């Protein structure tokens, strides 16, 4: 009755009146709210049709109400945006939307809530989407620039995020732009470092982490820790970490086509884990640094390159006893194991274990020596037995005859070792060995810290006074380049001196009584392998040339040398070692070469394994699965996988299936 007889004719006027009141309120006038609430309530009550109880309400007032909402704010928002900056609009929209939601709760039936919310989203967000999206990146930039999370930009960004989050997919374009922005900023930050990381890798790691932290804050505070944006950030970080330097101007980049991250990260580890007088880190601090390394590590694609450099540097630390502590070393190895798996660290672990085993071995050998009164020539010793294959070492590059002073020690140790481990073989790596000699022929006696080669050369002078370079070479067996280098370093520190002239001088110089250059103690560290030898490391602590320029030492095979009886040095312990340093760029190039060989080998092995299991595979599937297998170690280029496949075809392991394009078959 009421519906048909009263409402129907009055409807239009009534609705108009109601909406007019609402409009006034929106404009900021005070209205008599009852005048709006009551009629609408009565319309709700008119739900007489049972199956559609709200039909009258919806048709009569809800739809017009929402239409009015649209109409009012379409103009309002456009005007506002025309006159104000987008960040202001964010707060404006926030306020207005809150107002309207509250208004709807008051005036409308609760069933209208979702419709109102959707309308508000349409009006305030969707309608102005490009403008709202466009402001995100500038705000991110502003927020990163002003690091405080309470900054104006941070707040605005959070509002903007909340608005855009109402529209599904609104972030898709923002996300790409943000990713690109993070990458651009990150690369610029690294670029700014220039060549510095090469000498101070800490800068590199710090710059990366600082960059990451800044954007992490953005995601966490402004983007409510959104998973979507976390992924974007991770992807961008991966891109930054694995980027090749843009400008190849720096000489450091020239040696290889590899991105520098893996090597820098390994270097940083070395810096932290290597004993140094300068800055010893506290345990807690060290642990934090290692964690930060791992943060970068997780983004690293060239994990194999890192492993290679890391193991090389670890080898040096262990062989030369330069580690800060065993705990620190094993802390790092266990972190790597956790991040990259058991296999990844198995060699590192083995190297580390070899050290412990060697310590035990030295102790038990010492006990045996003491107990049996074994004659080892009266020298102190320290042996390191390294498992072949686990260490990044190659066999000695030159033949070598140990000085007779060490003969007994070496023979006894070999016998002792073989007795304990029958079937194992020891190979000596004199290139990595150093020793100490005490002089007995000087006014003030010195301890000389020398390489094994230098030791052998000096020991010759226990048995003679003057030797020519050629004679030395014959007696110690060294290949001439190595010989020259070691002799030169002894001459350079003035332990040996050139015999003035050929001929009679040599004879006359023989006159000094055969001084006892009695070696009271020789400490030997010998590195040995279990099966076949390999060696390449060397003390990297170079002796800095003293300020004065020395005249170049001219040596040839007929140069005659004698012991300098007037040798003097301020220090009691004199380090001679330096000559051992091998060209590090050469070593680096070898490492890089090793990496690409190993990659090729790895890919071929992966292809063979897959093909052996499946017998027949399509090219794209095979490439995809190989990529997956390799992912833990490195990210292979497709061309490299194809090369691996081609080589296997060439060697007859695989064949292309006749008549089926892009199919391979396994040939048993």
């Amino acid at each position: 009755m009421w519906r048909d007889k009263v409402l129907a004719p009055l409807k239009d006027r009534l609705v108009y009146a109601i909406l007019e009141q609402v409009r006034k309120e929106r404009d900021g006038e005070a209205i008599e709210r009852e005048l709006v609430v009551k009629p609408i309530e009565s319309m709700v009550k008119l739900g007489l049709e049972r199956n559609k109880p709200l039909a009258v309400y919806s048709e009569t007032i809800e739809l017009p109400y929402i239409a009015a909402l649209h109409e009012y704010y379409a103009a309002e928002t456009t005007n506002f945006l025309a006159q104000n900056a987008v960040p202001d609009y964010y707060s404006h929209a926030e306020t207005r939307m809150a107002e309207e939601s509250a208004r709807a709760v008051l005036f409308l039936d609760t069933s209208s809530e979702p419709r109102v919310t959707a309308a508000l989203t349409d009006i305030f967000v969707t309608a102005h989407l490009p403008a709202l999206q466009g402001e995100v990146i500038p705000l991110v930039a502003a927020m990163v620039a002003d690091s405080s999370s309470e900054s104006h930009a941070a707040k605005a960004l959070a509002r903007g995020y909340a608005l855009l989050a109402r529209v599904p997919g609104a972030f898709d374009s923002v996300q790409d732009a943000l990713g690109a922005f993070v990458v651009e900023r990150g690369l610029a930050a690294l670029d700014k470092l220039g060549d510095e990381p090469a000498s101070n890798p800490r800068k590199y790691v710090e710059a990366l982490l600082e960059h990451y932290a800044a954007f992490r804050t953005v995601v966490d505070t402004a983007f409510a820790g959104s998973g979507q944006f976390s992924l974007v950030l991770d992807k961008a970080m991966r891109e930054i970490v694995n980027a090749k330097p843009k400008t190849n101007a720096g000489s450091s980049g020239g040696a290889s086509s590899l991105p520098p991250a893996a090597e820098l990260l390994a270097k940083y580890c070395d810096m932290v884990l290597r004993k140094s007088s300068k800055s010893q880190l506290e345990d807690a601090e060290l642990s934090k640094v290692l964690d930060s390394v791992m943060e970068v590590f997780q983004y690293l694609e060239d994990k194999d390159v890192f492993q290679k450099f890391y193991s090389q540097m670890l080898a040096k630390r262990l062989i030369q006893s330069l580690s800060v502590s065993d705990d620190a070393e094993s802390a790092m190895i266990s972190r790597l194991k956790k991040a990259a798996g058991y296999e990844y660290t198995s060699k590192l672990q083995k190297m580390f274990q070899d050290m412990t085993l060697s310590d035990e071995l030295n102790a038990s050998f010492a006990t045996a020596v003491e107990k049996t009164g074994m004659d080892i020539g009266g020298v102190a010793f320290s042996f390191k037995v390294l498992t072949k294959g686990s260490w990044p070492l190659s066999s000695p590059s030159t033949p070598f005859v140990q000085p007779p002073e060490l003969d007994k020690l070496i023979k006894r140790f070999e016998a002792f070792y073989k007795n304990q481990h029958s079937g194992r073989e020891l190979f000596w790596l004199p290139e990595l060995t150093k020793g100490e000699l005490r002089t007995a022929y000087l006014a003030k006696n010195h301890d000389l810290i020398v390489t094994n080669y230098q030791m052998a050369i000096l020991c010759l002078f226990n048995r003679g006074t003057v030797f020519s370079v050629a004679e030395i070479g014959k007696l110690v067996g060294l290949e001439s380049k190595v010989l020259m280098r070691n002799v030169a370093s002894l001459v350079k520190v003035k332990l040996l001196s050139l015999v003035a002239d050929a001929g009679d001088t040599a004879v006359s110089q023989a006159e000094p009584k055969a001084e006892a250059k009695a070696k009271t103690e020789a400490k030997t560290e010998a590195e040995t392998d279990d099966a076949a030898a390999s060696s390449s490391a060397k003390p990297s602590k170079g002796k800095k040339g003293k300020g004065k320029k020395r005249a170049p030492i001219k040596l040839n095979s007929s140069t005659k040398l004698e012991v300098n009886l007037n040798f003097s040095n301020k220090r009691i312990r004199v380090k001679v070692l330096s000559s051992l340093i091998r060209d590090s760029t050469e070593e680096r190039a070898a490492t890089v070469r090793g990496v690409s060989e190993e990659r090729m080998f790895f890919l071929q092995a992966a292809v063979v394994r897959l093909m052996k299991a499946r017998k027949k595979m399509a090219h794209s599937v095979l490439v995809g699965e190989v990529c997956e297998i390799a992912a833990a170690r490195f990210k292979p280029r497709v061309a490299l996988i194809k090369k691996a496949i081609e080589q296997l075809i060439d060697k007859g392991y695989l064949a292309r299936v006749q008549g089926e394009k892009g199919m391979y078959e396994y040939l048993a």
Partner: protein
Amino acid sequence: MNRLRKAEKAKVAEYRDVVGAAVTARDAMTALEAHGWDVQTAVNAFFSAGGQAGAGVASGDRAVVEALFEQYKDDGCDSMLLEGVLAWCNDMELDPMKRPLLIVCHKLQAAVMCEFTREEFMRWAELGADSIDAMKAAVPTFVAQVDSDATIFADFYAWVFDFSKEPGRRSLSAESARFMWSLLLADKFPIVDRWVKFLENHTRDITKDTWLLFLDFVNTYGTDVTDYDDDGAWPVLIDEFVEYCNANPAAAS
């Protein structure tokens, strides 16, 4: 031998029906091949040669071919070597650097360049030519076969790889490969000139796989590389070539 096509199999069967099953399928094939797969001619040849099973052509021919071989053969071994081959080429009026000779070598299933073993040269008998004149006359037929039938061409093309490479090597030197590609494919596919030019800076040997796939490549993209599928299973060298083409479109003409 067992890679005969249906039509050829039928002809072999027909031939053996007429001349008698004592002639093996293999002999039948050889005889048919020698007469351009024309059953009638082959049958005629069979009977006019005295109808001997075991030879599609007159058995007397073998002696004549053998005599010819002796004439060119090297004194030191049982083969024609460079000198003999060149003399024979001269008599045959075959340019040693041109395709027809290569096709003849394929026909004789020669294993090594500039060399015919007795066994190889004796295939002339099976091919029904026992004089220089007969051999000369046969060459255009061989060439026509290779040119007109893609399957025969593919077989010939694959054979060229093994024939051209140095004995004992698995791959073909880039230089020889370039020469052969120009010789075999350049007139059919203009892109081959670019390929050869592209390879001028390539010093590594060409693998058999790359060699074989290149024929597929020109058959598919010989005139236009714009649709090239670089996610496909093509050898890396071909990928690089297409990249090079796309980077240097100017030289396309």
